[in-house]
């Protein structure tokens, strides 16, 4: 490791500006603080935030209160390996715990594949500081100078060979933690930077410490949380966007034994049955008639955008790049492409429908739920209950998938309101149908790309315009959304929109148009929709240049993107690209991307078309990825495979349509995700780039999957797929 950059010291205000999270709104509203809504936890870790992360327990074991939330990505495991490396302990002697919001200072929400990329260094530094603190304590105890002591497994060795264990440094069974004064010394050297020692855990395949609990059904998710005196709620949610609760006819539910409360909450726009047992609560669902109305009407609900009108009026809000002269005519119109590409609305479809338990008293509230930002959940609940933030404690649970969809948790907010009204802990469990209608969505994208190449296959110009909705700011409250939209170009919408190629005459414009559908983070934000358009158009340019698609990409990559060129060459080798011999109705396609300007991915797909069964099958995916230093190759591979399968799924199957202000898809029969029998053979190569720090992994390999598949379809059929998802029927239409 040669990267010695210090902990990020970004001021909060600057960070807000950087992430586009409503800096404008904050300025405008600074004179009326009490109106400020709760905000997500967007600040990167500061030095003092980490004082409590790592603790030496009286047993001599290390406890790591991990400031990242687990949803299956395994980041907590990787960070635990880093702590273990700096403290020289093995996996049996370190426990990773999920902190409650009163255990640690606020930490950044778990999004954007940042858990290892952003946190590995702060975590390593705090572990090394604790190590050096323990060394000083051991030296005092042995009446030696700290430098006389040799660090050894879970302790130190003095020059005479005697061992001073960590355990022996614990006084009066009080856990050892760092204090503010321990931060006054310069940061110690990190083993992480010289991972040569035989006790380094970097690159080891640690398994998740809870893996046995998971495979035996003992792992607790928020749906499994239960207390003896708990009440159970069935919640009625708005059945369409902008629906306002008008009235409830409780029917037969009124006089049933076991009913604690029948709640009509007009202010918070939901109704609920609260009962002393879960069977009554759920069985009465159909006995109740809930009246919803849409006083403002339903507008701005779109399943897709049409970019053509914006092209004609030249109307785009934001310009990402403008250089050279994009109107430079191609020397030959045969060397120009002009194309449209579209992706639909998607949902997260994690397997666990959200759930929460809340216990609210007159002065405090406790919440058990899964969330990517437990402090945001805390602050939102505090506002609902008119509590101070420190009166609310959130106990985060492992999530059954999140994928951006669990930044906050409305089930927790509902449970908190119902618990206050009922005077008991209350459980709220969403149904699958609730998930489909009441979560936020990935917005649709519509692209227009006009580009041309010279006779030797060099890209001369590239005009890319696209439309979608704001994603990162998608969930800002409506009373400040107008201000946000006036000043902020949503960087989530434009993620991955700048192609990695060397283009002289270059213009990228977009508009992020707020809709009345709830929009928010979804795996990779704009990166997959944007890459589908870019890498499809690049394939078109390779075709009109009569160049091999990989060679065309390599030819047009600038020197600064040499790492992307490397993964392209690697995936070429891995897939035997140069000697590929597709049979009739088979094809190979390639696509690549750089995620967040960091992680380089190249993918080759092989598809087969069966005219008898009328099926398109993705038979193989080859993927080469450079994510810098890999902390845990087993878990990184899991993330790459997960992204590839997700990418196959959105390419062939997933789409939400809205009609009359509601999602027409309500369960896995009409919103299908890829099944086992549709899963391709997947071949992965991680490039070993030890001199680069760990880079984002959790969303990186998703972006190029779709275009690799549709480019393979083109190779097999000469038919260009311009809208996702697609199936055999699209290929069979005569054009």
């Amino acid at each position, binding site marked *: 490791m040669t990267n010695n950059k210090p902990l990020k010291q970004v001021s909060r205000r600057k960070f807000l500006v950087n992430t586009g999270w409503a800096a404008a709104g904050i300025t405008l509203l600074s004179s009326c603080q009490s109106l400020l809504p709760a905000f997500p936890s967007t600040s990167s870790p500061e030095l003092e935030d980490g004082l409590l992360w790592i603790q030496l327990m009286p047993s001599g074991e290390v406890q790591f209160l991990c400031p990242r939330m687990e*949803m*299956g*990505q*395994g980041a907590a495991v990787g960070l635990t390996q880093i702590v273990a490396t700096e403290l020289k302990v093995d996996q049996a002697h370190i426990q990773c715990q999920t902190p409650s919001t009163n255990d640690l200072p606020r930490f950044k929400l778990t999004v954007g594949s940042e858990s290892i990329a952003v946190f590995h260094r702060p975590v390593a530094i705090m572990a090394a500081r604790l190590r050096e603190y323990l060394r000083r304590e051991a030296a005092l105890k042995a009446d030696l100078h700290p430098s006389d002591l040799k660090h050894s497994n879970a302790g130190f060795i003095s020059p005479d060979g005697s061992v001073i264990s960590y355990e022996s440094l614990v006084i009066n069974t009080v856990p050892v933690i760092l204090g503010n004064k321990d931060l006054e010394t310069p940061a110690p050297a990190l083993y992480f930077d010289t991972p040569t020692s035989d006790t380094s855990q970097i690159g080891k*395949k640690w*398994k*998740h410490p809870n*893996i*046995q609990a*998971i*495979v*035996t*059904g*003992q*792992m607790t*998710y928020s*749906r*499994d949380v*239960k207390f003896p005196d708990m009440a159970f709620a069935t919640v009625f949610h708005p059945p369409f966007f902008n629906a306002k609760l008008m009235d409830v006819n409780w029917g037969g539910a009124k006089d049933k034994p076991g009913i604690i409360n029948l709640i009509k909450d007009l202010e918070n726009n939901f109704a609920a049955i609260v009962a002393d*047992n*879960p*069977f009554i609560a*759920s*069985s009465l669902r159909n006995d109740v008639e809930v009246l919803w109305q849409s006083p403002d009407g339903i507008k701005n609900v779109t399943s897709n955008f049409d970019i053509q009108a914006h092209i004609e009026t030249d109307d785009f809000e934001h310009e990402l790049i403008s250089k050279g002269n994009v109107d430079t005519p191609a020397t030959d119109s045969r060397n120009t492409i002009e194309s449209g590409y579209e992706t639909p609305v998607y949902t*997260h*479809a*994690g*397997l*666990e*429908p959200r759930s929460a338990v809340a216990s609210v008293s007159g002065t405090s509230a406790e919440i058990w739920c899964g969330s990517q930002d437990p402090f945001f959940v805390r602050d939102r609940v505090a506002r609902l209950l008119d509590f101070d933030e420190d009166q609310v404690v959130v106990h985060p649970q*492992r*999530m*059954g*998938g*999140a*994928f951006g969809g669990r930044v906050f948790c409305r089930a927790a907010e509902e449970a908190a309101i119902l618990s206050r009204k009922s005077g008991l802990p209350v459980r709220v*469990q969403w*149904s*699958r149908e609730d998930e489909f209608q009441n979560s936020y969505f990935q917005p649709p994208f519509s692209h227009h790309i006009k580009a041309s190449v010279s006779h030797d296959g060099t890209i001369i110009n590239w005009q890319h315009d696209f439309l979608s909705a704001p994603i990162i700011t998608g969930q800002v409250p409506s009373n400040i959304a107008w201000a946000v939209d006036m000043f902020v170009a949503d960087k989530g919408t434009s993620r991955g929109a700048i192609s990695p190629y060397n283009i002289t005459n270059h213009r990228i414009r977009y508009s992020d148009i707020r809709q009345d559908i709830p929009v928010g983070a979804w795996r990779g934000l704009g990166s997959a929709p944007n890459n589908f358009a870019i890498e499809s158009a690049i394939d078109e340019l390779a075709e009109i240049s009569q160049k091999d698609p990989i060679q065309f990409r390599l030819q047009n990559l600038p020197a600064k993107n040499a790492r992307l060129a490397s993964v392209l060459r690697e995936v070429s080798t891995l897939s035997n690209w140069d000697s590929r011999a597709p049979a009739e109705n088979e094809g190979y396609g390639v696509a690549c991307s750089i995620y967040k300007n960091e992680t380089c991915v190249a993918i080759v797909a092989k598809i087969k078309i069966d005219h008898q069964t009328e099926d398109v099958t993705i038979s193989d995916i080859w993927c080469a990825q450079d994510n810098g230093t890999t902390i845990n190759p*087993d*878990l990184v591979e*899991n993330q790459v*495979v*997960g*992204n*590839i*399968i*997700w990418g196959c799924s959105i390419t062939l199957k997933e789409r939400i349509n809205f009609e009359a202000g509601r999602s027409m898809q309500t*369960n*896995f*029969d009409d919103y299908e*995700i*890829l*099944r*086992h*029998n*549709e*899963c391709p*053979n*997947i071949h992965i190569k991680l490039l070993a780039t030890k001199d680069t720090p760990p880079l984002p992994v959790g969303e990186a390999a998703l972006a190029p999957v779709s275009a690799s598949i549709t480019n393979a379809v083109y190779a097999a059929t000469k038919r260009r797929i311009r809208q996702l998802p697609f199936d055999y029927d699209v290929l069979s239409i005569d054009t």
Partner: protein
Amino acid sequence: MLYINDKQVEIPDELSDTPLVQFLRDYLDLTGTKFGCGKGLCGACTVHVNGSAARSCQLVLKDLATARITTIEGLKNPDRTDALHPVQDAWIKEAVPQCGYCQPGQIMSATALLIENPQPTDAEISEAMSGNLCRCGTYPRIRKAIHTAAGGQAHDK
């Protein structure tokens, strides 16, 4: 009389219309069986009914009569009481789970498959496991772990 994990279970009359998944989770506190969709579409709630895989969200208690139900908590090593079921061992060896939520259902489908077919091919695995959705993308490792549990070599499709 209903047997769940080899224990006789009496069903209160008022719960006769309750789906098995809810009875397991909320009456018996056997929360290893997961709720995913409520319509038999995702497989998260898979249990064994008389040795075959079944979706417990689609079974109502009054229809189960004398069935013998096994849940993830009742899965046992046939030879030793102090060891996990070989399929669970294989799941750990191949590090299958990501979020883990669908895995009890996956494991119940896999164990039912191996009872019927101790040496399944890739195609047979695909067919038997396609009712169990995984959003994290663990299908390749599931396939590998089933081969491992079957004592055979994992191989490509």
